[in-house]
Every structure is written in structure tokens, then in C-alpha cells.
């Protein structure tokens, strides 16, 4: 309940085509439930030309599921190009992102799709934490090598895997320089929920299939509902921002929206292993002027574990 309430306060940035972006079904519903007597709750929205405006939550209406006719999970959303910014200065290895990702994608193997690396370039440079997920490369080496078109690149920039197509050759894993792909070495022991509904590559892990590859999917199932990816909204430190490169805007978990180009310019954004020419969709802001202590993050650091096994 508490968490729901907190979430309801969180303002969402919508990635719709239409002017007037809206909060998600769930959020609005929950917001309504809590704020019935007091209708003054405001939601921050951004227009396509970048203006932020406040609108009473009660005025925001759900547009419903946008899986309108013609939406093809292999083609993706029209006129969109998704991008993520990871602020290394803010990461203190809270691991809420990973937890949320693992839970919502029903990850039951040993290896998480989202990992927070403990990095240190050289002896004298400062250590920092680096969250890493599929970089949704614009020139994805994984897609290039897949023999059966099981892993593919969509027009909105997202790289997905169709696990009904994958033959399990693992060539894509060998090709990915970011070690972000995970194989289902055995029959995944997933909860019932992972098997509900028809399979679509849109929601990786629902279900995972023995002998096929999984990885971060950039949460098209959340985008579709006008919400942010699980990791973005779960991070308590606003490390992640997510958005559309055409709109030049990214929004973090607290609902703050930034102009992407300015953010990257001011903070000298970079991408991982840029030299390889993979053209990732994930940008990193350097761990300078950190507000967080590296040592603090070490409390959460377990070198050999990225997926909590449920004991219940």
C-alpha cells in the first residue's frame, strides 16, 4: 500500500504521439483512490515541444492500451526512438532497479539482465558503480549474427528476442560486447504469473523458455502503457532517465524531465565501448561530483549474486 501511494505521487512522463501526455491507467486509478477528497493533486506533463505544464490529475484521462491496430511487436512504435541516460554520479548500488527488473521479468536464473558493476579504470582513479543493461545498440552485433532473425531491431530502437524463434546457438551472446545476454540453461522455474497471457516478444521473460536467450527488453510493455521501464521508476536515486530521442527529452523516476541534448552536453555524456561502433542507445553521465559515497554502496555489493532466489 505504502509503495502504491508513493508511486501514485510519482509523476509520469508519457511517450505518446499525441499532444498532452498522460499518466498510466494504474497510476491515475490509484491516484484517484487516494486523492478523492482532495482534487488538487497536480501532474506534470510535457508537450511535444518541450514545455512542462501542470495539470490536475483529475483532468488526465487514460487513453487505454495503445496496442492499436497495426502495432507489431517486431516493428515497434512509430515515430519513436527510445534512449536511456544513466547518471553514474548518483548510483550508490541500491540495487532496487535490479530487484524490480528481476521481479517483473520473472528472472529465476543466476544471472540478472541488469547488473551494477563495481568499476575502477585504474589504480589511482576513483571506483564507481555502473548499472549495465542491454544497450539497445543501433548497430547491434547480436542482431547481425543471428541466423534465424530471432533477435531483431525495431524501428523505435529497441532490440528484442523472439524466444519462439530462437534456436539457442548463442552466437548473439558471443557477439555482444557488453555481456548482457543471458541463456536459459534449464527449464526456468518461473511463477504462475509468467505464463499468463499470450506470448509476445514485447515482454521478455513472460515466459522464459529453456534453451533460448533473454536480455533486457527496454520494457515495451511499460512504454505501451505510458509508463517508464521498471528499473527507471524503481531507482530511489534517479540514476536512470528514459525518453524519446526525437522529443529530445528524458524523464527520471521522480518525474523530472530533462532536455537530452543539454544533459549530455552539460554532463559530458558518453556511451560504453564507443570505439566498437555499436552505437548504443544508452548514455552514461560520468561519476563526477558525486553526492553519494562509494563505500556506502559496498554494503549491497555481492560479487557472486545478481538474482535473489525467492525463499517464500
Amino acid at each position, binding site marked *: 500500500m505504502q509503495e502504491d501511494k508513493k508511486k501514485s505521487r510519482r509523476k509520469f512522463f508519457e511517450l505518446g504521439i499525441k499532444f498532452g501526455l498522460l499518466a498510466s491507467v494504474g497510476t491515475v486509478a490509484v491516484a484517484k483512490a487516494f486523492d478523492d477528497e482532495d482534487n488538487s493533486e497536480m501532474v506534470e506533463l510535457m508537450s511535444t515541444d518541450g514545455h512542462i505544464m501542470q495539470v490536475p490529475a483529475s483532468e488526465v484521462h487514460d487513453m487505454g492500451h495503445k496496442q492499436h491496430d497495426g502495432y507489431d511487436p517486431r516493428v515497434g512504435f512509430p515515430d519513436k526512438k527510445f534512449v536511456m541516460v544513466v547518471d553514474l554520479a548518483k548510483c550508490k548500488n541500491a540495487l532496487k532497479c535490479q530487484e524490480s527488473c528481476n521481479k517483473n521479468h520473472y528472472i529465476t536464473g*543466476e*544471472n*540478472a539482465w541488469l*547488473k*551494477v*558493476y*563495481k*568499476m575502477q579504470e585504474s589504480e589511482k582513479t576513483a571506483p564507481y558503480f555502473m548499472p*549495465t543493461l542491454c544497450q539497445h545498440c543501433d548497430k547491434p*552485433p547480436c542482431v*547481425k*549474427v*543471428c*541466423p*534465424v*532473425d*530471432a533477435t531483431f531491431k525495431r524501428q523505435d530502437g529497441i532490440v528484442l528476442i523472439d524466444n519462439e*524463434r*530462437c*534456436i*539457442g*546457438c*548463442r*552466437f548473439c*551472446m*558471443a*557477439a555482444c*560486447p*557488453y*555481456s548482457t*545476454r*543471458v*541463456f*536459459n*540453461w*534449464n*527449464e526456468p522455474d518461473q511463477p504462475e504469473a509468467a505464463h499468463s497471457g499470450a506470448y509476445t516478444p514485447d515482454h521478455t521473460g513472460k515466459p522464459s523458455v*529453456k*534453451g*533460448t*536467450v533473454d536480455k533486457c527488453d527496454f520494457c515495451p510493455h511499460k512504454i505501451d502503457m505510458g509508463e517508464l521501464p521498471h528499473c527507471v521508476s524503481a531507482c530511489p536515486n534517479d540514476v536512470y532517465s528514459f525518453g524519446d530521442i526525437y522529443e529530445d527529452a528524458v524523464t527520471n523516476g521522480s518525474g523530472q524531465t530533462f532536455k537530452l541534448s543539454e544533459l549530455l552536453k552539460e554532463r559530458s555524456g558518453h556511451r560504453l*565501448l564507443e570505439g*566498437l561502433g555499436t552505437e548504443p542507445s544508452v548514455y552514461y553521465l560520468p561519476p563526477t561530483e558525486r553526492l553519494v559515497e562509494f563505500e556506502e554502496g559496498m554494503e549491497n555489493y*555481492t*560479487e*557472486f*549474486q*545478481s538474482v535473489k532466489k525467492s525463499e517464500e
Partner: protein
Amino acid sequence: MKPYDKLIQDLAPQKFGMRGKIWVAFLLVVILAALYAYYQQFDKGLIITGMRDYALWGVYISNFVFFVAISLVGSLVTAILRLSGVKWSTPLTRISEVIAVAAIIMAGLTIIIDMGRPDRIYYIFLHGRLQSPIIWDVLVITTYLLISILLLYYPLLPDFAILKKHFSNKPKLSKWYGKLSLKWSGTKKQTSIYNSSIKTLSVLIIPVAFGIHTVTAWLFATTYRPGWDSTNFGPYFIAGAFVAGAGAVVVIMFVLRKIYHLENYITDLHFDKMGKLLVLLCLVYLYFNVNEYLIPAYKSTNEESAHLEELFFGGYAPLFWTVIIGGLIIPVIALVFPKGRKPVPLFIIALLVVLGAWWKRYIIVTPTLLHPFLPIQGVPESWRHYFPTPLEWTITFGTLASALLIMTLLFRYLPIIPIHETAEERGILEQDKTETL
């Protein structure tokens, strides 16, 4: 006995003796064990192997590369030597073609064993995309298999006709040989088609052979991984393949000569020649190895040196140096001396070479995968290492046994030494013909 009859007597396929039967039974046991292990894998998934997300390929893939490598010898002995007019290689052509066919069949099967979803194998044809090196591999391997089978089969036509007559007291066997001989009677027209098809195939098989192993090298070289990311990889693999293949021919010809008493046909001269060939091939391969390891070591980028240190001084060092020294340097030294090229020493050296070649593939595949660009974190400690599990070994031995079984059966029913060609070379064919006509 007329020389021609003696020749047929010597070279016609023989029934398995006691030893042969035990050998086949042994191979069958190994294969059955492997089938059981594979059933486990099919049922439970690749979890039964030692592979995990970092060591995502393992002994299956290195074994696959080994098979592809060995199969190249078919083109070396039958095509390259044949086309360059080398006469001494005639008795070795069939042996190498049989090795090639067996190896390439097993290469194809081994790659299926490695797949997570072997039940979807036909997707390769249904949804194949031409930009994937795996599709290139599928294309060249099937082409190579086809040409290799033809190159094994065509030279057999006259032999089958001979065998049909030879086994006339065994109607069933004789009938089969007759069918397989495609009504070969040795007319001028037949001979000319026969000669030109073999020549065409010999020419055709060379680029395809280079193709299969180059593409196999590209499976690795098309990734960014340190240790694989090399423009040298195609020729490096080809050079290594010829070493492995030539070694395999020596081993097999030694064994066959012993068992079937072929001393008159596979002579010390053949061992001497093969020994010389092997030195040459080893030296070429050594040269590629120097390129492959020394230049990255000289530059020592972070990624490369992590990988190379592991090979030179780390956990893989004992294996690495054994393979380089035992499988390449010692053979070169030993084979320079004529004594080293006598049958027995050459056999032992060739065995070393083949073993070295097998392990060499292993250290090409595995260590690289354990040195990715981002550090290995957040996975169980055991995932930082790789060693095949007993079930994985069982399956691997099963593939090796299957290759040996295919060879054994082919050598059981086919003349090991081409009868017709040998007769022709020894000038005893015509005489026989005029007699029988």
C-alpha cells in the same frame, strides 16, 4: 597367381576379424552412452554441461571446429596433391576421403548437439538470414559434404565393378556392388566422363574446403572478443586444419596397414612423404601461431593481455604450452630426421599432432570467452571457469566414436586402396582386360 588377381585378393574388403568386432562393439558402447547423455541434455537442457553465460561455448564447439579441420584433409590429399600431379598419394586418397566424409558428417551433428533448441533446427532453412556466418557455415558445410561424397564415390565406380565380379560367390554382396557401380564397364566414353568429373570435383572442392574452414574461423573472428578479433583467423585455421588432417591420415593409414597387411601398398615411402608434408604444414602453422600470439602480446592492450597472460602463465598455461610444444614444435624437430619419418615414430608423432590439434581448438574457444570486455560480476563463482562435465565428455567422446565408426564401416565395405587406380598405375590392368575379354 596373376598380379592382377593378387591385387584384388589383397585389396578387396575383408570381413571383420575378432579384433574388428570388439572394436565395433566398443565404439557402439561409447555411442550408446553418449546417446543416453544426450537424452539427459535434451530433457534437462544445456544445464548438464559446464557452460554458462560467460563460457557460453565449450567443448562441443571446439570439437566441431576439430571435425571441420580434420575434414579438410580430403581436399588436401585428393585434390591438391592429385592436381599437382603427385603420384605417391594414390593409395592415400580413399583413406583421406573417408576421413573427410566421416568428419564433416560429425561436424554437422556436433553443431546440432550444441544448440539449445535442436527441435527448431529447420528454422535455419525456414527463417535463415544470409548475413549470419552460421548460415554461411551451413551452406558451405552441406556443399562440402556433397562434393566430398561424390569425390569418394566416383573413383569407386570401377572398384565396385571389380568387386561385383570378385564376390560373385556371394550374390547379395555382389548385387550391391553391382548396383553401386552404376553399370561401370570401363568403356572409353565412361572413362572420359569419369576422369573429367573427378578432375572437376577436385578443382571444385578446393575453394569449398577453404570456405568451410574460413567461415568456421569467422564464427569467432566476426565478434569483438580479444583472442578472436583477428584478421589472421581464416588462414590460421586453414593452416591448422591441414596439420590436423595430415596427422589423422598418418594415424589411420598406419593402423589400416597393420590390420589389413597393406605393406605392399602403403610403404615406408608413403610415411616418409607424409612426414615431410607434415613438417611443412606444422611450420606454416607455427608461423601463423607466432603471428596470432606474438603481435597482440607485443602491443599488450588491456583486453589482449588479460587473455594472453591466462594462456602464457595462467590457468591455461600448462595446456597451452603442451599443445604448442608437444603438438607442434617437437613434431617439427622429430620429423626433420629421416628416422622420425619411419612408420612407428611417425605414427606416434602424428598421434601427438592430432591430440594437440584437438586441444588447440579447445584453447581457442574457451579462454577468450572468459575474458569479456566488462568484468565478470554478479554470477556464481563457478561461472568464471569452464571445464566440461562428465556428461559433456560422454557426448563428445560419442561424437568421436561415431566418426570412427563411420570410418570403420566404410573401410569394411570399400577397398581401402583404390584397386582400379593402383592397377592402372602398375600397368597390370590392360593385360587383365584383354584376358577377360
